[in-house]
């Protein structure tokens, strides 16, 4: 006996119409912005379970050291910027971790990494993510004004030594390597701050390593935190920062940050085991 479908004909027609419109760039009326934005959260706890990435020729196995899970972002009351600093030697899979995290959040595809997200972060529209990879291309003929809006407070914070009127019309070729990264970070933060998502993730793969010493890196992170808290207080920002600056004797002094330490415990032919713990 045939069961009655719970979707009516009109529901199906509306769904088909919406799908068709999406396929061919036909703009649909959007819900008012107030409904989708400004949902304030105290923060999300994002954790990572033991997981394994099989690249075919190489397998990286992430093993939590003491507990079942490793905390990636930990909510702190009255804060809306959460920083995680990843500390590890070369070849431990820091960039791989960030890439997989980007894919897991952005594409919502089945990632080999076992991330535990807050239930609120299920819909992709709720989450905005930006990733500045280690080998980000520097397109030297790009003009600053095409990357960053004129009134960007992030750019003023991260690149204060340049005059507003001058820098907007400059091209990337007229800046140094460290300034490129500051510009990219400002542009990514602008993108995150203008999104309607209520949680923003910024992944920085050795982005600030070229801007100076450890104090400079810490200061840049602190600037991001201050500007974000001032300009976008209704949204959470989660920053994951990979930096080799930690490997020296001094350590990055970023307050209220989680430090994720990765150690290679065994390296066989095609298998790398990495132990992870929060410090």
């Amino acid at each position: 006996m045939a069961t009655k479908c719970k979707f009516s004909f009109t529901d199906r027609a509306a769904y088909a119409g919406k799908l068709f419109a999406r396929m061919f760039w036909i703009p649909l009326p959007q819900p008012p912005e107030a409904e989708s934005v400004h949902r304030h959260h105290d923060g999300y706890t994002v954790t990572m379970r033991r997981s394994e990435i099989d690249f075919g020729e190489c397998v990286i196995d992430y093993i939590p050291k003491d507990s079942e899970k490793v905390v990636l972002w930990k909510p702190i009351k009255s804060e809306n910027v959460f920083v995680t600093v990843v500390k590890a030697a070369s070849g431990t899979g820091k960039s791989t971790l960030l890439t997989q995290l980007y894919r897991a959040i952005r594409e919502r595809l089945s990632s080999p990494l076992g991330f535990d997200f807050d239930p609120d972060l299920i819909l992709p529209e709720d989450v905005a993510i930006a990733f500045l990879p280690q080998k980000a291309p520097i397109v030297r003929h790009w003009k600053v004004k095409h990357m960053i809006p004129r009134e960007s407070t992030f750019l003023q914070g991260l690149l204060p030594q340049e005059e507003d009127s001058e820098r907007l019309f400059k091209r990337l070729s007229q800046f140094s390597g460290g300034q490129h990264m500051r510009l990219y970070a400002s542009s990514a933060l602008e993108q995150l701050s203008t999104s309607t998502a209520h949680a923003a993730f910024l992944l920085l793969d050795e982005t600030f390593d070229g801007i100076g010493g450890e104090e400079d890196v810490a200061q840049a992170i602190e600037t991001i935190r201050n500007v974000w808290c001032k300009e976008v207080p209704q949204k959470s920002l989660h920053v994951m920062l990979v930096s080799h600056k930690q490997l020296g004797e001094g350590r990055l002094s970023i307050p209220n940050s989680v430090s994720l330490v990765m150690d290679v415990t065994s390296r066989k032919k095609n298998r790398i085991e990495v132990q992870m713990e929060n410090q």
Partner: protein
Amino acid sequence: MIRHALTVISNFRKKHPIFDAFVWASLLACATYIGGYSDYFKAWLWNLLPITIGGLDANWWRAFGFTICASLVAWGLGAGIGYALGVFAAAARVSIGPEIKMRRWFGISIDVFYRFLYIIPFVLTANITYNIAFAWQDKFGAPRCVSGIAMILVAGAALGGYRVFIAVYSSVSEAKFESVVLSRSLFSQGRRDGSRVLGLRQSIGLVLRLRDCEILMFSRSLEDAFHLSIVAVMIVESILPAFYENFLPQSGFSPAYFGGVGRMVINAQQSLNPRQISGILWLVLIYDGIVTAIIRAGCAYFWHRYYHQQQKEVA
């Protein structure tokens, strides 16, 4: 083994110095013997030198003028069509997610169809296009120039246009992970949500950023498009007699140069005139080199110069 053989020869020469004299004498004898038979080839070689440009008569220069205009128009149209199609097809591919399968399929289909047009022999494409244009002109009474314009359009779009198309399209379809991630992460006007599915304007913005990441490939494709547009125009001229008559109000008797360089070369081949063929080929090569240099200078002015400023300004 070769080293051993060379050592043996070297030792032999040290022991017998007369061996060198014998080798040189043999070479001289061979050269003198062969030289007696080389007059015919020498005459041919004279026919292939650039000085043969001086032997071209006025008709060749008039035909060359037609070819210059047609190739420049074909290049402009082809590059424009290829670029527009490339941006559109690539924009259809930049969004991700299962809900836009149709759009991705659409972009891939444009690529497959255009690739097909590129790889089949251009003579076939030109013939089919001319038949369609002529039938349309005959049936609906369209102006005579329609078939001429259609042929120039095809000459530009089928070969050169595809190079521009594929440069834009592959900068998205084969983009490096870092380029995609960076282009998506940076600020762009109008993109306000974290959605995977992008609107048309945002998709095009992303395509242009990815094109910028591979700007050298794109500017090289503009040069390639020009090379190919000359080839295509000359093929069209050679398969359609008096091709430029299509732009005149009446058909009928017209001078030979109305066939363009392609038709003149065919005529010269039939009358066994290699000197003039060589001259016009040198002329076409020089013209190609000059225009390519101008295109390269334009690309350098717009894009490439910034790649070299880094060391000068920030050292």
